[in-house]
């Protein structure tokens, strides 16, 4: 009998342990909700990834809202984050209150009823502070429903080797480039001369294709979700990339480690990259320190990345959550993020502030913020669709095969279009 009692006790212990492991979150969330009525703390759970919002800002928010218990959870970034967010939204249950979203925010508009409409919380009041194109990415077509407040933007600019450009006798200061190299055709002519004089190349033909598509006001799907990836604007970008490849000015399509080695060896003299590419160049090409510059990109400005912050409908405290989000993405706090890891803020009013000056030794002492600020105001956006990735991957693979396998460009184009049409037919 004694043994039985002992075993029952052990068993009970096991089950309690399991249940507590599964249910920990419930407990944390349930407790404050009872207290909040009596003026206790409100618990808000927030999901973000490393580099989305600075940790010092989060600490500042905790200090500013003493009545809010802000639980910031750092999750792996990229596809994992999106998958986790999606499963949480579809599964219901105790998800986070505040979530960070990447540039795929527009694809979440389809499920806008899962998010709090930030306009109901008074977001219209702070709208003028932010870049208009960026703001629109988080709002519905009719601008009645807003699911995310802007954090940072990632304007695409031209990275180039000022010394090599000078040697080739082409426009080599940021001002000269902005004035003289206006269109992509100008850029091609410039690359040809640089290649002749210095033997160096630009990014791959796929990079070129992507950056031209980024400058377009049309993407792969129109506002009604119809496929337009086989239309004129895409073909033009494709043809331009192929032309540049045939002129020999593009770096062979290969892995990033090859590209980095070429950059460090001074074989690549220019490429278009988003504002976050600053860190990439610095770590990839330490031997070329001081020789790089950035300039306003020829052909227009695209955007590659930049995140948003929204509130899930399942939250119990939309008001408090909105106050926290508003604080986290306020201009002053975005400056902190820029200083910490180079996320360029989406609030133009601070671009000119002395705090934003960012003179980089790697870029020969150039103030990077001036170029980014100028570019950020002119960003061209296009309708995004959750199926964009599928189209881009197919086109990039086909374009890569033109270089790597010497496939006929026209055949590669029709094959890719066929594959896309079939994949979209489901």
């Amino acid at each position, binding site marked *: 009998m004694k043994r*039985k009692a002992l075993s029952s006790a052990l068993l009970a212990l096991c089950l309690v342990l399991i249940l507590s492991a599964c249910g920990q979150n419930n407990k944390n969330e349930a407790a404050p909700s009872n207290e909040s009525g009596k003026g206790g703390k409100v618990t808000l759970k927030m999901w973000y990834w490393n580099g989305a919002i600075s940790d010092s800002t989060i600490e500042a928010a905790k200090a500013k809202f003493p009545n809010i218990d802000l639980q910031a959870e750092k999750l792996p970034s990229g596809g994992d984050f999106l998958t986790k967010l*999606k499963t949480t*939204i*579809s599964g219901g249950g105790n998800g986070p209150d505040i979530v960070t979203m990447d540039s795929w925010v527009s694809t979440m508009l389809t499920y806008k009823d899962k998010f709090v409409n930030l306009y109901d919380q008074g977001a219209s009041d702070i709208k003028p502070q932010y870049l208009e194109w960026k703001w629109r990415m988080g709002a519905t077509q009719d601008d009645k429903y807003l699911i995310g407040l802007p954090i940072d933007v990632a304007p695409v600019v031209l990275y180039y080797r000022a010394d090599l450009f000078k040697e080739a006798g082409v426009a080599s200061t940021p001002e000269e480039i902005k004035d003289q190299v206006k269109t992509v055709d100008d850029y091609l002519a410039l690359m040809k001369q640089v290649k002749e004089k210095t033997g160096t190349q630009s990014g791959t033909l796929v990079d070129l294709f992507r950056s031209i598509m980024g400058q377009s006001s049309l993407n792969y799907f129109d506002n009604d979700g119809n496929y337009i990836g086989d239309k004129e604007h895409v073909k033009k970008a494709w043809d331009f990339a192929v032309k540049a490849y045939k002129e020999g000015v593009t770096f062979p399509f*290969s*892995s990033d*480690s090859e590209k980095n*080695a070429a950059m460090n060896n001074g074989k690549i003299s220019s490429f278009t990259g988003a504002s976050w590419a600053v860190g990439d160049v610095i770590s990839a090409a330490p031997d070329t320190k001081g020789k790089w510059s950035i300039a306003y990109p020829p052909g227009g400005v695209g955007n590659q990345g930049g995140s948003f912050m929204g509130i899930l409908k399942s939250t119990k405290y939309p008001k408090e959550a909105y106050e926290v989000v508003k604080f986290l993405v306020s201009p002053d706090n975005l400056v902190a993020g820029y200083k910490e890891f180079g996320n360029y803020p989406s609030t133009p009013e601070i671009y000119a502030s002395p705090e934003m000056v960012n003179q980089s030794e790697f870029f020969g002492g150039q103030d990077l913020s001036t170029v980014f600020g100028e570019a950020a105001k002119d960003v061209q956006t296009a309708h995004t669709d959750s199926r964009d990735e599928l189209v881009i991957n197919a086109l990039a693979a086909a374009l*890569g095969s033109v270089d790597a396998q010497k496939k006929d460009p026209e055949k590669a184009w029709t094959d890719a279009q066929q594959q896309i049409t079939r994949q979209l037919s*489901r």
Partner: protein
Amino acid sequence: MGGLLKEIYKSRTLYLFISPFYILFLIFSVFPIFFSIYLSVHKWDGIGEMTSVGFKNFSYMFNDPVFWQALVNNIAIWLLANGPMLVCALIVAFIINLSIVKFKAFFRIAYFLPNITAMVAVVIIFQSMFGNEYGLVNYFMEMVGLNKIAWFNSSTGVRVVIAVMIAWRYLGYNAVMYLSGLQRIPKDLYEAADLDGATMFQTFTKITIPMLRPIILFTVMMSTIGGFQIFTEPQVLAGNQAPYPGSETIVLYMFREGFIYQNYGYAAAVSWVLFVIIGLISILNWKFFNKSDD
């Protein structure tokens, strides 16, 4: 059935004790397996409504050249990697097992070491080693007077690189398996053969190989299953871009369809086809090795 339930009821305390395992197993393994069957006949993007599409997922798959290409890639990589690797592993094990070889424990560990490395890091190192312009392999090939090879520009090159990675990783593992098998073979068989004047080659083919059959079956089966689950190598090689030519395996295809393009229903269908393929090949393996048993 009633008897079984009665038995279970009789020893219910014991079953309750092991319940933490099977409760978790039911939730995290059994349920997903059955849910994926349900999922495979639906269309689902992860959030929205699930719509029933019958067997459309399967008919699309069988008409999709990308799927067939993935299957071809997979079989090519699997053969390239595992054929030579298993033979080499057997030779390595045989040599380590020879009585003249000293420091057996050292070699065992040294050969096994690649197996415990972090896969992603290894892939990145191999990627730079096989780089078209700045790779170490091409550097050495030029040094000995050969031409550079653009490894990542052709499907054959890419498959070879992936196969080398897999072979490097699993050679030691399989060698250790074979070694344990070799050590189980009774010494007197070899002594008898020695007395009869058998050559080393004869002892190898007439004694070692037949006695090792169960181990060989095991390694072939495991590398078949592993071979159809190749994922990390091609995924990391190509990064976020589209996969390199010839490198898209079935699991990578499934992953892209499910987690990048959000066709969860379709990805579930692919996983079931993959299950059937692995099952069929395992049965074939088993039949093939058992037939010649007697």
